[in-house]
């Protein structure tokens, strides 16, 4: 269901016209009110009058997360503080948190784009939305809350955690929509099974999952355990929170609300803007944001864009589900490779477990990528040729899928170091 057909099905010339107009206004405001941006624009030699249409965006400077941290907490404010009605921040696990300050109008936009998101997965005013995203500084909880309120659905603001209560609410209130991280949905399904409750029977029709990377195979698992449509949603605190992009019922790429968030995909090294289909770093400009607007914010998320028409009728550009982070990107003989892509290929081989490591070396001036895969009881064969065949098969699959030559090496179980939480996947010896 399309929440706002006027905006979501606007034709390309209309959309680009609107974007250009909004960008011009934004640049003007930033130049006058935010010294940080005025300085950056002056450094690039751009003046407000230079931006007339959306194509002029290429003249504008980028914004990075580090720069946002440098001006913490109020350095990006484009309005006077009394205009701000709400503040969220990122968790700050990797440094100082980044700040998103919302005006009343920003909250309206957030509610609107989240209403689009929830509607795209079929939510209506008749639904009961069990919102298991955390409420608080994290944008997930309130973002979903505002969107569901805008639609007129019934929100249960249960927030994250307390699995027993989640299950009781699911069962007793017969929630029809679940919103949480994808991994928590599987955790809930598992906990339900232990209590003898089959989540497929409670009447869930859709789940909106985001805030962490997940895969197509995980979607299949979630949908079979919940008996509901699993919709991938995308957003980030710096931009607004959830609501930047969402899948529709066709689950083939995420529609970006590009009348509010203008997307570009660039080569993270050369900063060149890439055409549709080419993978690179997603860059977003907040066209309508008032509190803390951002010009060409480098998300570090890797994806590609697709402007082709979607059968759902929306005309907005779609982004592929996030493929990885620029921090993890490897360049092997000029080809960009993300660990997530390699993971997808090797996990599709029967019996392979998600324990692998990538070792990059340079031999005779050429990059070589070794993919170490841990052996296990299921994979093991008594015959050398069977094991070698498996190595060659994974190499062939990687070449077919990613167009890179690799050397697959089977290693003993537990020989790849397990760190707390995130495993160390990449050893780049070219840097040594």
């Amino acid at each position, binding site marked *: 269901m399309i929440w706002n057909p006027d905006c979501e099905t606007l034709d390309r010339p209309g959309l680009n016209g609107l974007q250009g107009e909004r960008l011009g206004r934004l640049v003007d405001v930033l130049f006058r009110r935010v010294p940080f941006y005025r300085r950056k624009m002056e450094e690039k030699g751009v003046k407000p009058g230079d931006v007339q249409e959306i194509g002029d965006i290429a003249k504008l400077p980028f914004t990075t997360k580090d720069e946002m941290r440098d001006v913490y907490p109020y350095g990006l404010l484009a309005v006077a503080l009394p205009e701000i009605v709400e503040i969220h921040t990122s968790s700050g696990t990797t440094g100082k948190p980044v700040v998103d300050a919302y005006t009343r109008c920003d909250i309206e936009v957030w509610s609107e784009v989240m209403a689009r998101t929830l509607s795209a997965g079929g939510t209506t005013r008749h639904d009961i939305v069990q919102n298991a995203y955390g409420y608080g500084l994290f944008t997930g909880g309130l973002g979903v809350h505002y969107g569901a309120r805008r639609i007129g659905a019934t929100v249960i603001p249960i927030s994250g955690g307390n699995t027993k209560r989640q299950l009781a609410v699911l069962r007793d209130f017969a929630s029809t929509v679940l919103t949480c991280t994808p991994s928590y949905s599987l955790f809930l399904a598992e906990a339900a099974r232990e209590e003898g409750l089959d989540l497929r029977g409670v009447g869930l029709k859709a789940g909106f999952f985001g805030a962490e990377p997940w895969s197509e195979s995980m979607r299949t698992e979630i949908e079979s355990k919940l008996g509901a449509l699993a919709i991938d949603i995308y957003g980030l605190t710096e931009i607004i929170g959830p609501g930047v992009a969402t899948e529709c019922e066709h689950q083939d790429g995420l529609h970006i609300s590009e009348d509010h968030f203008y997307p570009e995909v660039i080569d993270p090294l050369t900063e060149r803007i890439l055409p549709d289909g080419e993978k690179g770093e997603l860059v977003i400009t907040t066209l309508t944001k008032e509190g803390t607007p951002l010009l060409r914010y480098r998300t570090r998320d890797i994806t590609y864009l697709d402007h082709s028409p979607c059968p759902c009728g929306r005309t907005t550009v779609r982004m592929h589900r996030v493929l990885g982070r620029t921090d993890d990107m490897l360049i092997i003989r000029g080809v960009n490779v993300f660990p997530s892509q390699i993971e997808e290929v090797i996990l599709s081989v029967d019996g392979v477990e998600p324990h692998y490591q990538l070792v990059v070396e340079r031999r005779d001036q050429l990059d070589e990528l070794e993919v170490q895969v841990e052996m296990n009881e299921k994979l*093991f064969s008594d015959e050398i040729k069977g094991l070698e065949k498996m190595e060659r098969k994974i190499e062939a699959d990687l070449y077919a899928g990613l167009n890179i030559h690799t050397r697959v090496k089977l290693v003993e179980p537990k020989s790849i170091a397990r760190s707390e939480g995130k495993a160390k996947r990449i050893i780049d010896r070219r840097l040594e």
Partner: protein
Amino acid sequence: MSVRQISIFLQNTKGRLAEVTRLLAARKINIRALSLADTADFGVLRIIVNDPDACLAALKESGIVAQETEVLAVEIEDRPGGLERVLAVLDAAGLNVEYMYAYVEKAKDNAIMICRIDDRERAARVLVENGIGTLTAEALTTL
């Protein structure tokens, strides 16, 4: 007719084989025959031991990937042409030998070869029909 062989996955790293043999020695497991096949990256150690169950348990506890395979212990006359005769019989029956290695001890005057053959049961039958003996696990351990 068949004998239990244990196959172990080993990474090609210094001292790895010694670590495995040390583990087996500590559990008083006696290796009666052994073969090591390897590639640049890894090796497969195949052993016949006195107590396969204890051996598998010890390996599993240490997180080593191992697998049990049924193989044949074939008696071979200890004279020139002894092995040739066995292989000729198998070849005539269209049976493939995946790999083979020698057993430490002899059965009376005969040498013993451990053989992995693609169709083990038929191979045992064909060998018997041609007067070539295979040893049971019990017979092997009492040598």
